[in-house]
């Protein structure tokens, strides 16, 4: 332990040492993600995990980017969660924001009770879990769904360009991903509808409010159907498959590349370290309400 702290002090004492730009506390086995994070900018990275005995280690990880060398401190702390938490506090670089990253399925337990409260923002992935941790969070799944949200906007534009009075009265979300509820929540949020009633149906759930129905259906393909009411009722469809998003409205079809971004790529994007947005929280809330009708 003392060796680890001395090592950290010696790194900080080097002539060439650059102040870390942020603190990041990582939990889980996504080494590839962690490696990528420390290679793009100097950060103080603290990897935490549970163990019987408290132990620390510190290494300096340097990466060459072009002509520049970027060095980060990579600290590993293993031990009982409470002791890990006290140790982390002492190692966070002062004045810098602290992010926690956990890509674990389980979002209860030691990490969440002891470490998450030290973080300004927590990065997690709701693709892996239905629960959303409390507080300020960045959901990688939300970022992953961004292109789909963008294309749904586009599909609605198409409908409106045909008939400016068209209005969405029904939505069907077919998806195999456990996170389609989040998409459904976002749609309700954007349409400003609050489900008033709902029921369990075969393979899913159906919710209703005045003049609006939304079905969430478990399926092998990923598809979103929008039902428009207007001069003549029309259906718009968004399909995701083979790395592409396909939009169909009336007889027009359009294809767009769907960027299937890996966790690593998502973590490296700027938005991963941005501020949580209000519409995410609203979408989570509505998405959960929808799910409740399924049980």
């Amino acid at each position: 332990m003392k060796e680890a702290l001395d090592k950290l002090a010696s790194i900080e004492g080097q002539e060439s040492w650059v102040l870390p730009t942020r603190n990041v506390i990582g939990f889980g086995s996504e080494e590839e993600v962690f490696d990528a994070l420390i290679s793009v900018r100097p950060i103080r990275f603290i990897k935490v995990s549970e163990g019987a005995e408290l132990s620390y280690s510190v290494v300096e990880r340097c990466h060459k980017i072009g002509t520049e060398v970027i060095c980060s401190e990579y600290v590993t702390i293993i031990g009982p969660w409470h002791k890990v938490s006290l140790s982390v506090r002492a190692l966070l670089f002062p004045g810098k924001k602290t992010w926690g990253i956990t890509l674990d399925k389980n979002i209860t337990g030691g990490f969440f009770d002891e470490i998450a409260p030290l973080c300004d923002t927590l990065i997690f992935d709701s693709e892996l879990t239905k629960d959303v941790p409390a507080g300020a969070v960045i959901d990688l799944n939300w970022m992953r769904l961004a292109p789909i949200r963008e294309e749904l906007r586009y599909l609605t534009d198409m409908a409106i360009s045909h008939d400016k009075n068209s209005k969405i009265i029904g939505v069907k979300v077919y998806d195999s991903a456990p996170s389609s509820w989040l998409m459904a929540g976002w749609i309700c949020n954007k349409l400003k509808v609050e489900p008033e009633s709902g029921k369990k149906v075969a393979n899913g759930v159906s919710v209703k409010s005045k003049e609006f129905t939304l079905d969430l259906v478990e399926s092998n393909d990923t598809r979103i159907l929008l039902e428009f009411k207007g001069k003549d009722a029309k259906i718009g469809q968004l399909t995701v498959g083979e790395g592409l998003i396909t939009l169909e409205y009336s007889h027009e079809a359009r294809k767009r590349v769907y960027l299937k971004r890996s966790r690593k790529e998502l973590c490296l994007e700027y938005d991963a370290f941005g501020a949580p947005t209000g519409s995410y929280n609203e979408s989570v809330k509505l998405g959960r309400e929808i799910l409740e009708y399924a049980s």
Partner: protein
Amino acid sequence: MGNPFVEGRVLSPPSTILVIFGASGDLTGRKLVPGCYNLFKDGYLPESFSIVGVSRTPLSDEAFREKLKDGVTKYSRSGIDEEWWKQFSSRIFYQPLDATKEADFIALRERLQRIGGDTIPNYLYYLAVSPSLFGEIAGKLKGADLIETPGGVRETRLIVEKPFGYDLETAQNLASSLYQSAKEEQLYRIDHYLGKETVQNILVFRFANGLFEPIWNRKYVDHIQISVAEDIGVENRGDYFDKAGIVRDFVQNHVFQMLSLLCIEPPNSLSDAEGIRNEKVKVLKSIKRLTPGLVQKHIVRAQYGKGLIKGLDVPAYRDEKGVAKDSTTETYIAMSLEIDNWRWSGVPIFLRVGKRLSKRISEISVHFKQAPLSLFRGRQVESLEQNVLRIQVQPKEGISLRVNSKPPGPRMRVEPVEMDFSYHSSFGIASPEAYERLLLDAMRGEATLFTRQDEIEEAWKILEPVFDSFEELPLYFYEAGSWGPKEAAELLKPYGVRWARL
């Protein structure tokens, strides 16, 4: 006529004998002598400079030098170099002395005369002993003609270490016991926080940059935080600390000193010690007095329980050596204050000081008011961070400014970034130890960074109602290695503010 060439000269102090009382003690070995060694190596000391150590322990010059060598090896910021040490240590002497024995002072006088030889060096006495001996030592020095009136053939000055009293009354008593033998202008009360480069830099930073002074006031500053965190406990000073507590040990001196420098009005000149100290006193005088009824709302006091520091289990305060088992002494304090003057009225100032916190760090942060959000309406920008100027005093000295900026990419986003300045990377040299600067100043007779008696008294006056209400204040507990009791966060809630991350 004064020397017309004096301006701008780096004053090498006049020849001086530094007489250290408490020569066998901890402070001498850990700070004073290593500090002098570095000053010597860096060429700041006058050609005729010597150190005479005095305390009761019988030691030869040689044995004393050997003992100090260990300290220099261990604590000097530049390590030790044999050749330099040889030259330096030949100027170190030891004289056994019991502060209660007059004859010992006569012997000291003779020894000093022998060391001075044909020259007439100034005498600088460093009292690194218990304050209960201050009056006695000063009196005996005077009795042995070792303190002269200022402006005489040689300057004689006394450096004294805190604690400067236990409360207002004892501080006044201590001063009057010293005044019987020396004048205020000969007394140099040391506060090593003021020797820190960053603390001195507060004034340069404020007054040498056109950017900051215009916004250094209530119109632009939202609030100020001063945090002094230590990870150590009471070490082997349990006895002393248990009687004093953190407010006496830290707030009354270091914290109020930093606060008054941070908030002073521009003095006439930065080289006018009295001018600067006058302004500092004015700040302290303007701090709104807490009435006993208000203390509850403005103060959180707490004591550490057991916990974990640097991976090691550490005992609760009450289990420390020298501490009473049922002690209610505070090891942590959080308080909110206000300076009621034209510049600062309405700006809350939050102080927190504690032992056995997560890490050792001292920091001042000035939080500026937020920019209006309206420009960003409709963008995915839901909040803007305040601009924060952070002055880190310890362990690394540096200043950083947090500004909001747009990260690269097509979207309008705002992310706070830090503009950092650290002494290390900007100047490439390690900042000298606080004691080095202060010792040199005292040899030169430069008193700006030393505390005047009226500052000490004002600081005690501010704290009087606090001490009066201590009994009624709840004592909270916090885990060693944490950031203090959760009640401290509650203190800030009504202001919509959180403690800065340290």
